[in-house]
């Protein structure tokens, strides 16, 4: 550890090579006109720099997949994935989310939100709802220009929040790559554990194997090295 040196008395630790003449001027610098022309020349050169601004309403910015825009509900095969567990509402720091669960005996996933509202005036786009959701049902979209004309209009209901998962593919891929992964461990084989998961509803898990064969497969998987060990 680098020990702090010489804290007893004040000292100058200058990294400037010209420290000795830092505060004194030569004759030319004293009449300051050459310096002004130097600065004007620098200003002139800036004209040829590439523009970094964007003429916004005409030219739209396309955010990267990592961008946390308006939170949306993932629509999977025409229905929401959300099971109304209320975890996002609990995690939300500004308390923007509210919901009411309802049950449906015909649906295998049983629970769904009767209403689901996000008050966009309260939302601070921290992404905690997405981070805690156990069903990957609420994710942050790329939507950033959100406009309303009244306070009532700012409370988004389920209808306005639902977005088909195909439109959110980029964000879902990002989450899979950078946020979801188990910490340096091989976890893929566990996917079969949760065949009732709403987010994997359209996946075929029936491999035609018997229970004994499945257990053998798992044992085999346990000994196999993970294909990606945080390769970056």
């Amino acid at each position: 550890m680098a020990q702090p040196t010489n804290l007893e008395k004040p000292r100058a630790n200058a990294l400037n090579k010209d420290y000795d003449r830092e505060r004194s001027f030569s004759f030319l610098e004293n009449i300051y006109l050459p310096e002004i022309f130097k600065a004007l020349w620098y200003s002139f050169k800036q004209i040829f720099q590439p523009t970094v601004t964007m003429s916004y309403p005409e030219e739209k910015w396309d955010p990267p997949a990592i961008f946390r825009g308006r939170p949306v509900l993932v629509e999977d095969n025409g229905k929401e994935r959300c099971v109304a567990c209320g975890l996002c509402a609990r995690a939300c720091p500004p308390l923007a989310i509210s919901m009411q669960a309802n049950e449906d005996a015909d649906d295998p996933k049983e629970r769904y939100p009767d209403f689901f509202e996000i008050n966009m005036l309260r939302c601070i786009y921290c992404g905690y709802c997405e981070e805690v959701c156990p069903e990957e049902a609420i994710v942050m979209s790329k939507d950033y220009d959100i406009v309303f004309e009244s306070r009532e209009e700012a409370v988004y209901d389920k209808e306005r929040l639902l977005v088909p998962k195909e439109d959110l593919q980029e964000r879902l891929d990002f989450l899979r790559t950078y946020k979801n992964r188990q910490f340096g461990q091989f976890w893929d084989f566990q996917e079969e554990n949760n065949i009732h998961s709403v987010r994997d509803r359209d996946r075929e898990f029936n491999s035609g194997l018997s229970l004994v064969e499945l257990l053998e497969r798992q044992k085999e998987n346990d000994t196999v090295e993970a294909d990606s060990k945080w390769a970056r």
Partner: protein
Amino acid sequence: MSTKKLKDKVKPTFFKEHQEKLYQALEDKHTTVEIMKDKDPLGTEMILNMGPQHPATHGVLRLALQLNGEIIEKAKLDVGYLHRGVEKIAENKTYQEFMPYTDRMDYLSPYSNNVALCTAVEKIANVEVPERAHYIRMIGCELARISSHLLWLGTLVMDAGAVSFFIWTFREREKLYDIFDQLTGHRFTVSHARIGGVANDITDTAMAMIKDFANDFPQELKDWHGLLDRNRIFFDRNEGVGVLKTEEALNKGACGPTLRGSGYAYDIRKFAPYARYDEVEFEVPTRLEGDNLARYYVRMEEMHESIRIIQQCLDKLPKGPIRTDNAKQAYPSKDEVYYSMEGMIHDFMMTDTGICPPEGAEAYHAVEAAKGELGYFIQSDGTGHPWRLKIKAPSFANLQILEFILDGEMVADTVVIIGGVDPVMGECDK
């Protein structure tokens, strides 16, 4: 340079006849002017109310200046216009939930705020942070420092009279904001650090952008040094203005670049290294003069050192996880939440209860933010909410200095001195 001499020589007065005519004119318009015994209201003494809605006070800072002619006799500060009660909010939130609120304190370097809170919670709850997360945090903190110092540089030079400089520093800040967007998901309110690590790994794009920035930025700094270091106009505005002696700086509790500009090399990154600052090499620039120009040099050299730290971090960046693999201390991975019962239970527990430090535990942890020592003091009662959370804000400490160094200066130098001290009101008022 010679404000003090000026004060002794100049006794500003108005023509007596002229004053009388003015009073007569006022009375002709049916106004009565109350003349006090020793003070003429049309004399040279006045009280100037500057702010809170003044663009040069960097936010909602209000100054009451008692002037005699153009010289400030006494200055008094009025802070609190941006008070949002975040310390009280913290008592009603879990540690994790409170984290986004820290973004809104020092909004010019939000990353350091996130890291300050998370390291304090990690200290009180004994959480181990993986190596890679430490390095990502350091990169983020140093980028935040450069971003904050760039705003300071732009506004200081603008306060001294050169407006186009502001645009050039903001061009570089725009690059930094793009980096933060790719690194954390937001340009401004980053919310990237988490208790036990960071929210997500560095993406390839972010990595490339940080490398580009670290390569290109020293050239920009060199250009700016060339513009300002030998410029007499800039010097005349800053040299010998707002002088703060070392003993006074220590007595009044200055911190950060303001303290280091007075010659005291106190930097928490060296003094009590957090993250992995003990594994990178950097210098703590200081100056002895304690005036605005010294603060200028210190901050400029700090930006050089930040780039040095970022480059070393990029070289050393280890592979591995970015969040601690202990579901009692941090969120389990989403893979675990999706595919195992324990993972899901932990996910619910972490959200609802949060991380619970031992009952009666207290911890203070400070980081070197861009403005100075940013510390969090946490008292725990064994639940997931802090019993008391106190924030030691560097801007608040530095503003106490401002009141002191403004006395005896010219009124035109006020904005330059505020610019040199570089307060952020969001952090000062909390």
